[in-house]
């Protein structure tokens, strides 16, 4: 039974969901190391894209899990500023303890996620439409309530030293502490998806919802929990930004929708569900952040960054499709199959 141990070979590595994103990351890194000069690869340069990657990465991972389960959540685009504003209004405007503000922001993410999940499960409307609705609804609520309660769309907050230390400090003066939170999220969700039995349920749900339910998986509860985790992660990113910048704005999150989805897809997650990995999502996020920030180190105009990202996305999808086909058609060589 030597087949039961994971065979480590070049072939088996190429058949993993993150194979394409790993090659993409290497290519992008080499490209910007050449054109970005020594600044790009320096500690400061690394900080610029790691910081960007961390805040996208924290939302991209739960979004990726949702996509593997066959769903999509774009309401994060307004949940991020909603999280910032909730914290700033509760703890900045009303001077409540910072923990109350953090709890309120996270609770908001959980409630909106619960609502997303419940609507998707009960109505069977595609989650893209449902979360498009909540995207606008939450954006409107955030704007309306902010103006109503504070009279402005930008609220300042003075986080105490503990809050700064937990969520808003720069390690070594360069690296945002959110990088550590991102690593923690990757470890947690990586364990859930790839090692816990729940991960199997998520893959099965994305593969075929009806069969998964018939196999006894509580698909509705899982769907709701996944939406709640993406909601909470979005408000978490929002509140940590409010603490980092000591202020919150009503509109500061729409770009996250596409950035997170690009990161997830570049990371090898199948848009229609059932395939992907947390490690791939992390690599995809890094790739996206390197392109997004690396352009500033090159002699090229920053306006070209979107072009590169667009091409990168298309290449990544094609590459991931190819690697997935390789994984699908893989059969052990004839000689090995004989006993």
């Amino acid at each position: 039974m030597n087949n039961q141990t994971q065979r480590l070979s070049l072939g088996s590595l190429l058949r993993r969901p993150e194979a394409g994103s790993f090659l993409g990351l290497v290519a992008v890194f080499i490209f910007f190391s050449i054109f970005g000069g020594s600044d790009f690869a320096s500690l400061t340069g690394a900080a610029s894209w790691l910081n960007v990657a961390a805040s996208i990465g924290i939302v991209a991972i739960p979004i990726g899990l949702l996509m593997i389960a066959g769903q999509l959540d774009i309401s994060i685009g307004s949940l991020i500023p909603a999280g910032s504003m909730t914290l700033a209004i509760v703890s900045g405007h009303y001077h409540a303890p910072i923990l109350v503000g953090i709890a309120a922001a996270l609770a908001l993410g959980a409630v909106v996620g619960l609502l997303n999940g419940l609507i998707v499960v009960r109505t069977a409307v595609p989650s893209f439409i449902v979360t498009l609705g909540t995207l606008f609804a939450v954006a409107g609520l955030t704007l309306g309530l902010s103006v109503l309660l504070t009279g402005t769309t930008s609220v300042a907050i003075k986080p105490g030293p503990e809050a700064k230390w937990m969520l808003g400090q720069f390690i070594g003066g360069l690296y945002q502490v959110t990088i550590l939170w991102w690593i923690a999220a990757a470890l947690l969700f990586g364990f859930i998806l790839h090692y816990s039995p729940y991960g199997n349920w998520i893959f099965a749900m994305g593969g075929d919802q009806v069969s998964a339910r018939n196999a006894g998986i509580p698909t509705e509860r899982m769907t709701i929990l996944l939406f709640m985790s993406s909601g909470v992660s979005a408000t978490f990113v929002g509140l940590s930004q409010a603490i980092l910048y000591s202020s919150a704005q009503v509109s500061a999150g729409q770009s996250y929708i596409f950035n997170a989805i690009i990161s997830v897809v570049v990371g090898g997650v199948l848009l229609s569900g059932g395939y992907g990995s947390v490690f791939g999502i992390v690599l995809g996020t890094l790739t996206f952040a390197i392109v997004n920030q690396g352009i500033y180190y090159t002699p090229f105009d920053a306006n070209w960054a979107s072009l590169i990202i667009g091409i990168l996305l298309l290449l990544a999808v094609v590459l991931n499709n190819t690697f997935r086909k390789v994984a699908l058609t893989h059969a052990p060589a004839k000689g090995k199959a004989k006993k």
Partner: protein
Amino acid sequence: MNPPLLKLTNVNKSFGPIDVLYDISLEVKAGEVLCLLGDNGAGKSTLIRIMSGVHTPTSGTIEMNGKVVAFKSPRDASEHGIATVHQFGGTFPLMSIGRSFFVGAEPTKGWGPFKRFDRVRANDIAVKAVQGLGITRIDDGDRLVGGLSGGERQALAIARAVHFGASVLILDEPTAALGVKEAAHVLRIVLQARRKGIAVIFITHNVVHALTVGDHFAVLIRGAKAADFKKGEKSREEITDLMAGGEHMAELEAEIESYMAVHDAP
């Protein structure tokens, strides 16, 4: 004598004003293969859905081992030991053999929140179960289901059902999408399941396949049971005629021949 494992008595099903099944009575005993024959649209799918708990009958009863049962859901039916395998077998093409085998019943190791999916054990059991059905080509539980051939996927799905203790195995057109050789393999697996004492309900419109494995046959025509007979009681031609809805296939063939003669004439 033992009561039949699964027995349907006067089952009717209508969707709103449309009657789909009329007065279907069937029974299947342990270690017996019941072939359900019928043309497209004869009500086979609806009957399968009733037996596997997707639909509830409008009237009539379902009994298992002599006791009346009412399936609330497919999950409920499978807890009663009814397993349904669909035409394309495994429905999770992008999952590994080991993972898809144990969907919803994952073996774990470790403790509390650190319980982990036991990949090695899952792969081992899945591969052994499939090899037990004679598919020795499968030896790596990490392979993706989508990379298997149609027959191998059927075998995997049947192995899964048998492993989880199914007493009634419903096979929905298992050979329809397969080549001759693969179909023969699946038929052999059906006979293996029968030998294990499982009651098999084999749905097909291929009369040859049905005659190869069946002990008992029922023909459905437009939602009603048109015939019910035992092995050896009817010939292949008679069954084919029956399935065509009483219209004689010979007449149809003659019609086609004359049509061809007119149109192919040089």
